């Protein structure tokens, strides 16, 4: 059987291993994060939410997923 290639990425400071050829929107689906409540940064650049499915993840990508929390 052919082995599926995996890549290592960093999500919110934690290393994660995922299958190759996943898009950013797939990553959010895997993490079960609702798209309408977050914003996403890829390697320090904010990603337009409509473009998330067009961007394929590469090894060593750094992703930040943020939302609103309580604050003063």
């Amino acid at each position, binding site marked *: 059987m052919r082995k599926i290639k995996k890549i290592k990425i960093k999500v*919110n400071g934690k290393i994660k291993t995922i299958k190759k050829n996943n898009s950013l929107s797939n990553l959010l689906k895997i993490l079960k994060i609702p798209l309408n409540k977050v914003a996403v940064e890829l390697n320090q650049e*904010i990603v337009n939410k409509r473009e998330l499915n067009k961007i394929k993840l590469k090894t060593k990508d750094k992703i930040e997923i*943020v939302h*609103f929390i*309580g*604050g*003063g």
Partner: protein
Amino acid sequence: MNKDALVIAKKKFTSRLIVGTGKYKSMSECANAIKISGADIVTVAVRRVNISDKSKPILMDYIDPKKITYLPNTAGCFNSKEALRTLRLAREIGGWKLVKLEVLGDKKNLFPEMIETLRSTEILTKEGFQVMVYCNDDPLMAKRLENAGACAIMPLAAPIGSGLGIQNEVNIKIIRDQTKLPLIIDAGLGQASDATIAMELGCDGVLVNTAIAKAKKPLDMALAFKYAVLAGRKSYISGRIKKTISGKPSTPKKGII
């Protein structure tokens, strides 16, 4: 909508009390306090989603952003770069353009770093944000923020979370007299009467977090602040009497027996 609405960046708000959503014991306590306070604007922070623990409650599940205006805030940012990153992310979450800028300069007193704040205000305004700016109670700096495009001036009453109340009423009054922009006291209030004083000085609103969230009875304090703001505002627009140093009888002399 009442006639005496608070208008910020051409948007009308019923309540002149803005509340923070931090430091509460639970999300439900926070949501209840907001409801009782009557606030229709709340400040919120931008932080990482907890990807390993999905059971953690989400703010948006407790406070509906369709009913209450979320005011993204840059609390905890110590330079312009961090503040800009935070607010650009906030905008991406759901299109928020009305934001609160807060760039801190010192970890002990949490005073605003005004040079970075001014720079950030200029950049954010150019990017189409409507920026409410946390600042020192310095009339000259308040003027510069206004010239840079701020949509509201938010001077501190005292250091954040200190509960000291307004320390420099004169400066607040000077800022009031020089600007037509919404003037909102942000930070340092400790009890409901502090909010009344702010409103009687002519401020357009107050922002309160710690004084409500950390009170022994947060829900009751939320109500106290609601009425304190209403009282102060009514008092201000009703036109107070002149102060005199001699007594003047309240009862007519005519008909004395």
